[in-house]
């Protein structure tokens, strides 16, 4: 396996673990209810995805690279710390859309190993549900936070997401562009 590909699959794995741990701890501390329930499934999905990536790497006779920083760490830096559940869900919705977009681009990469493609396909099914439940939860939170504030929050985090994605592309330009065959806009 190409070192660049090994790096990016390890990066996906680390981000899935970070998401699982964050939602797991949040779900543990929240009052029981629909959001807490769906967040519990969400963290179990993220955990499973991390396992899929590790299994995929091992099936390709590789070991994941241990990474300290994840994609989500950069989110906090760019967008600031979300301080309530609405803000957490707003940033999650933006992040999940970015994940789906990124996985869709990567799954179209030329000469992609079928094992990697199958892993994308399995994960993408769950990611669609993530966007669905988070969207529903945000709709339900309109009565508490107001539609306008939620829309403003999503807009603010979308801007931060674009910055983080561009920064990630810039930092790892060579390896990412080589694998994904994409051009900077």
């Amino acid at each position, binding site marked *: 396996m190409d070192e660049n590909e090994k790096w990016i699959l390890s990066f996906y794995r680390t981000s899935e673990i*970070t998401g699982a*741990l*964050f939602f797991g*701890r*949040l779900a543990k*501390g*929240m*009052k029981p209810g629909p959001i807490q329930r769906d967040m519990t499934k969400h963290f179990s999905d993220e955990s499973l995805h991390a396992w899929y990536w590790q299994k995929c790497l091992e099936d390709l006779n590789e070991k994941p690279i241990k990474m300290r920083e994840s994609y*989500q*760490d950069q989110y*906090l830096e760019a967008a*600031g*710390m*979300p*301080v*309530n*559940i609405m*803000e*957490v869900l707003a940033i999650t919705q933006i992040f999940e859309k970015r994940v789906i977009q990124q996985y869709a681009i990567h799954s179209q990469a030329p000469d992609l190993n079928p094992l990697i493609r199958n892993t994308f396909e399995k994960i993408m099914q769950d990611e669609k549900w993530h966007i669905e439940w988070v969207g529903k939860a945000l709709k339900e939170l309109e009565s*508490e936070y107001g539609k306008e*504030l939620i829309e403003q*929050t999503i807009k603010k985090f979308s801007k931060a997401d674009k910055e983080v994605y561009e920064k990630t592309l810039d930092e790892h330009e060579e390896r990412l562009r080589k694998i994904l065959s994409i051009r900077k806009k």
Partner: protein
Amino acid sequence: MAAFLKIKATKLTDEAVLTDLVTESFILVEMVIELQEEFSVRLVQEDLKHVKTFGDLIRVFESHAK
């Protein structure tokens, strides 16, 4: 809060910088959300914009709890 952060309560001084008390920023997010649930307070990002220390955080919660 000391139990949540897994640190000694004596470290929670007014001047203690929050980012020095935690190893990961995500722990701060979880703690602030739990505290809001615990004290029935609702904050938005703007409320914590200038919060740096433990004392700053306490004062924000106090002002919103009134």
